[in-house]
């Protein structure tokens, strides 16, 4: 069975600073992808960034980047220049088609 662990239930960051959210997973799949999703209080799940497991190069998307360590099964998300609008629940979700979600990390952004 696949499992996803997000060990930080809540994180806080000062506006304009950098924060890293951690995620580890376990999977028996050989070909899979990894995603970070953001869920604001409105509950609409929004895709933040995508990483193909076969690629060694870490994905980046504007202020968002990942540190993907395949052997360690680690997939952390770094948010640079944090903004008030980044405040939300963040979910790590690997999968080959269906996604397995972690329990989430609540990110608070202090003005």
């Amino acid at each position, binding site marked *: 069975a696949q499992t996803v662990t997000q060990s930080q239930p809540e994180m806080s960051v000062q506006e304009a600073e950098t924060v890293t959210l951690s995620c580890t997973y376990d999977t028996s799949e050989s070909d*899979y992808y990894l995603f970070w999703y953001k869920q604001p209080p409105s*509950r609409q799940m929004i895709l933040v960034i995508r990483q193909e497991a076969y690629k060694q190069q870490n994905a980046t998307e504007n202020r968002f980047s990942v540190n993907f360590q395949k052997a360690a099964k680690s997939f952390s998300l770094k948010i640079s220049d944090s903004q008030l609008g980044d405040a939300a629940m963040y*979910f790590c979700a690997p999968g080959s*088609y*269906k*996604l397995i*979600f972690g*329990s989430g990390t609540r990110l608070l952004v202090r003005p």
Partner: protein
Amino acid sequence: GAGVSQSPRYKVAKRGQDVALRCDPISGHVSLFWYQQALGQGPEFLTYFQNEAQLDKSGLPSDRFFAERPEGSVSTLKIQRTQQEDSAVYLCASSLSAGAYEQYFGPGTRLTVT
């Protein structure tokens, strides 16, 4: 273009009632997924369609749960004889192609069983 839409957004059902939740995916999206999200938790996979074919229903919690996508577009998740433990947000997602492509989520239907 329009995103994934779900209706109703909120549903209150008395225990034992049947409910039907609708999902309209993004036009042209081949894959459609249903997830269940309990309060304070991450979503959990329920079922997966590729066009009209239900390829994986391993996450459906019991035989009271049934999903269909008869024409490969709109999907309905039906829950028969609802129980209190069915209370959750039901999320629908669609993706352009088969496999692990980006999934785009709808706003969800919050089901409360009293």
